[in-house]
Every structure is written in C-alpha cells, then in structure tokens.
C-alpha cells in the first residue's frame, strides 16, 4: 500500500499542516485557539517523524517512539495550559492575549 505513495507527498501534507498552525498561532488572539494551532504544529511534526522512520529507517522504530513521546508531552502541555486558562478566566474574565497584562511588569 505504501509503495504507491512517495515520501515527498506525505512531507508536503505535513508542511502544509505545520504552516497552517503557524499562521493560526500568529493571527489568533484567543488563547485556546492558539493552543489548537500548537496542536496542529505538533501533529505535523509527528507525521514527519513517522513517515521518515517508515520510509528511510524502517528497521529500528526510532521515529515511532519519538512520536509516542511527543504525544505524551503534548497531553501534559495541554492539561497544564488549560488549567492556567481556567484560572486566568476566573480572575480577569478573559483569555485574550491582549487583555492578559497583569503579570507584565
């Protein structure tokens, strides 16, 4: 099945996902949507790890484990970030980046 798909096509798709995430991170103001963009970036990187591992170094599963660890770290990061957002919202009733300036100085 995967003999039909060249590696570069998968890399192109992951590049597009990555830069969609970058665009979202730069344009969004709400913190939750920024976190969603970060998840997009992490997923693109995961696709790259797995695809290159499968196509070029398929005997040792290194990319596989790395993608596994990235998924674990992403879960931890999302949990902590959402806890912070909920606490922020409770304190200043907003989670837009422009309005969260209390800890600035």
């Amino acid at each position, binding site marked *: *099945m995967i003999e039909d798909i060249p590696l570069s096509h998968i890399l192109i798709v992951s590049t597009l996902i990555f*830069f969609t995430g970058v*665009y979202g991170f730069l*344009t969004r103001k709400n913190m939750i949507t920024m976190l969603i963009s970060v998840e997009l970036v992490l*997923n693109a990187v995961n696709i790259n790890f*797995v695809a290159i591992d*499968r196509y070029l170094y398929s005997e040792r599963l290194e990319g596989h484990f790395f993608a596994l660890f990235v998924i674990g770290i992403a879960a*931890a990061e999302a*949990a902590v970030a959402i806890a912070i957002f*909920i606490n922020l919202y409770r304190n200043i009733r907003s989670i837009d980046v422009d309005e969260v300036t209390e800890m600035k100085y």
Partner: protein
Amino acid sequence: MSVTSRKLLRAAIFLLFVLIGVAIFFLVLDYMFLAAVQVVVYMGGILVLFIFSILLTSHLNEKLQVVKPVEIIIAALVSLIGASVVLSVITNHRFNPVVADSPEITVAEIGTQLLSYGKYGYVLPFEVISILLLAAMVAAIVIAKREKKPES
C-alpha cells in the same frame, strides 16, 4: 479552517477532523499502535479538554474579535514564505526510500523495546515522561484549584 473559523467550538471540531486525518496517516504507514494512541490521547483526552474549556470560558454564540488585516497579511506572508521554502527543498531533494517489506510491528515488540535498557532501548525517556506526566497532573490540579476566599 481550524485556524480561521470565528466560532470557537467549530475550530475545535475542525481540529477533530485534522486529528482523524493524522491517525489515518499512521494507519496507512502500518503503525497500528501509534494510530490507536493518537485516537485515544488526542480525541479522547485533549479534544475533550479543549471543548470543556471552551464551554467554560466563553458563551456559545460569541464570535471572536476580528484581527487587524495588517496582522493577517504579515502572518500569511510569513507562513507562505516558510511553506514555499520547505516545499521547494522537499520537491528538489531526492529520497531513496528503503521500504522494508512490512515489518509487522506487534505491541509486544513495542513494549519490550520501550522498556529495554540495552541498545535502542527507551527506558530512560520512558521514565522521564512518566515523571513529567505526574508533575503535570499535580501542577494542573494545583493551578486550577479554587483558593478559599475570605467571606466579605
């Protein structure tokens, strides 16, 4: 669309479709276990967290504020330039894929390699990740806990 939709819940649902697509990629590449982990952790855990926090922190029909067109243009320029650079590198580079004839990775194999401490063993990062997850759990509970306010 996950980054342009102005309703928060719709953005989260579009993220769900992206995650399903990534899981299908893993399936196509013969990594069944990774696809299962992707489905369970992302769709079962992270996406539910996102939807919960969206519902907690905003009203349902609230629209996000519009960003300034200058910022949109700058961000689009940055991402388009980056994408074109990376795409040109990818399309010009010649990979020589050595597709092994279906290694057939079993879950038992993954488990033994994850816990072995010899060459290509991953027991150290495994333990580090477990400690990190524990710390993140404790931190999330501590941060989100409501402090007792004095009655006024």
